[in-house]
């Protein structure tokens, strides 16, 4: 569904994306994992043809640069947060996007209903909660029933309940055979949805792996997020890895996968190295789907 070859994008001297190549078959779900500034968002924009870059990208066999319109017609895009004119009413906003995709009113209504927004047409975009906005973005992305859905950290502004809803919806889309490409900060989402994880670091694909490999789990594991001072994060990660923990640094604290019965172990390890932990967060139960490698 996606064929990317040598995608490179620089802003001035900084190379935000460096020579990224990958192929994503239809029906699969790929997660982009990486710290803030690793180039996830830029890569997505390049793939959608919103930004001009070197290299080539094809969506469903359609070249993004030369036939961007046709290529993007195959994509439903969900941003981190829906950005649209604040005082537009929800109904007219979605109708506008429907108009761009040759979608009729009945289909628009159905799409709204499918994300539980039926009856909110007269609300203005500025009055929507974060969750509703993301559901609206999803509804817009799904309007034309595209085969590929691209999401850029779709849950990062949502609370637990909102996240759950979005993840569940994505799960259903995946089951229905859609191709998913998403950037995420959250291991639980990655583990739940992704068949494959591309780990980005400083713009380049560092590892092409799976969630199971990233977070090996013979035993049931709990992913915890440790909040430390920024300065000590790198040091702490090294210490924890030396102690045999699976660690990931992704800009919002340190994610550590630990056996369920040893949740305090990383804190202890850090305490021994005089690294202070400010806060701990239990990430939602990670449900590793059966049959996923």
């Amino acid at each position, binding site marked *: 569904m996606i064929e990317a070859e040598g995608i490179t994008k620089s802003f001035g001297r900084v190379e935000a994306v460096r020579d990224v190549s990958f192929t994503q078959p239809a029906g699969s779900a790929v997660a982009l994992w990486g710290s803030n500034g690793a180039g996830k968002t830029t890569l997505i924009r390049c793939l959608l043809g919103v930004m001009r870059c070197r290299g080539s990208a094809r969506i469903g066999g359609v070249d993004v640069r030369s036939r961007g319109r046709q290529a993007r017609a195959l994509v439903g895009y969900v941003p981190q947060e829906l950005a649209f004119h604040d005082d537009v009413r929800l*109904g*007219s906003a979605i*109708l506008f996007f429907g108009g761009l995709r040759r979608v009729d*009113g009945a289909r628009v*209504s159905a799409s709204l209903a499918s994300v539980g927004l*039926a009856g*909110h047409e*007269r609300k203005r975009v500025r009055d929507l909660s974060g969750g509703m906005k993301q559901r609206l973005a999803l509804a817009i992305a799904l309007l034309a029933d595209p085969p590929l859905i691209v999401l850029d950290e779709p849950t990062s502004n949502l609370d637990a309940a909102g996240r759950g809803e979005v993840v569940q919806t994505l799960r259903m889309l995946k089951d229905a055979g859609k191709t998913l490409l998403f950037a995420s900060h959250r291991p639980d989402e990655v583990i739940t949805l992704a068949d494959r994880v591309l780990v980005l670091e400083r713009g380049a694909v560092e590892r092409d792996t799976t969630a199971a490999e990233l977070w090996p789990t013979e035993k049931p594991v709990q992913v915890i997020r440790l909040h430390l001072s920024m300065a000590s994060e790198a040091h702490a990660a090294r210490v924890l890895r030396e102690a045999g923990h699976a660690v990931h640094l992704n800009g919002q604290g340190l994610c550590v996968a630990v056996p369920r019965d040893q949740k305090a172990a990383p804190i202890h390890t850090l305490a021994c190295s005089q690294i202070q932990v400010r806060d701990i967060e239990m990430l939602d139960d990670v449900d590793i789907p059966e049959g996923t490698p």
Partner: protein
Amino acid sequence: MSRCAYVSVCAVVLGCFPVGASRAGDPAKPMGEVEGLIAAADPGGTVVVPPGVYEGNLRITQPVILDGQGHAVLDGVGVGTVVEIRAPGVTVRGFTVRGTGENITVEPAAIRAIAGPVVIEDNTIEDALFGIDLRESPGSMVRNNLVHGKDLDPGRRGDGIRLWWSHGCVIEDNTVYGSRDLVFWYSENLRISRNRVSDSRYGLHFMYSHDTVLSGNDLARNSVGVYLMYSNRITLDGNTMRNNRGASGYGIGLKDCDDIVVANNALLANRVGVYLDNSPSSVGSTGLFESNTVVFNEIGLLATPITHDNVFTANILVENEEPAAAHGRGELTHNTFARDGVGNFWSDYAGFDRDGDGIGDLAYEPRSLFGAMLAREPNLRLFVHSPAQQAVEFTARALPELRPQATLVDPAPLVRPPNLKGSGAATTPLRTRAMAFGGLGLLLFAGATVGVFGRQAALGPAPRGDDR
């Protein structure tokens, strides 16, 4: 191809020459027939010329009343003067006279009189280098003729009506267009009324001709409306000069003229309303401008720098791009702009009238920096009607040291225009209706665009409340 061209050339040639003959359906008759009729008549008797086209040149050497009754055509066939009156007491009435020569050095005319008095009335003159030419023909009457010059460059045309040393003549109700001038040389005590001159060079032109009254004439689209030169004691009353916009483009131009009275005239949309070139020129003489309406001219009143001793009172100067200006760096302050406490109405007067007597409490003193710049560099006129011009004037108002001297002082400006006596066509109701429909149309168009373009497709019925 060449045969085709030959045929069309023939057609043109045929079409050009014997126009009248073929149109009338009868063969043209020789002019000798008319001469025969005159010779057979008693001196001073009436000769009615039967309808028809008479070709050739006619000399009238005895008093006679020659009447074409509107159906006789005298055609010079492009040679010389068509009718020449060599005796006093001749009347030429009701003819179409056409086809003079074109050699301007011999000044061929449609009707020329070299003796007076004569009466020339109700004639139609076309295709004539000079129209009516009175040479030393005093006491004559030229009335209700229609004169159309030859279609030549203005520089090669002759005069529509010319008087030369012909005192005491009456020139009235004539219509002249596409000619050079209506010109009066060395002719005094004339009465020139209700003539219409358009699309010519000088509407009415005076050279060394004194003591005359011009009234009710309409001079439109000429290079200059009325141009008086070296002529004294002339009264212009109730004339209209409009759209005279030639190179000089004066409504009224006065050069070295003493004791001129200009009253109740309308000067509309000329390049310059009134132009004063050293008038009055003699010591002790004056010029009087009273109750004229000067509207829509680029310059209302323009004068050479030394112009003095003119009196302006009760004139209405409205919406002239520059109300008054002097050539170069001159000023008009040696003229008087109020008489007996009555000044003029200036539409750009910004003062006030606290006591309500109709006279502004502040003097009218135009000081336009842009006007001063224009006087230095005429090319700058390109920038009139633009915000940049306003900016220049604003700057001058804000920085008084930049303000030029006032070009004139009207100590008693009128705050309301006095009643007009000048002419001015009323707006037709048709135009008003077109305007109203147009305005409504524009509004409708705007509404329709909003309706069609801005239509918002509704998605489902509007919910009654927010409970869903």
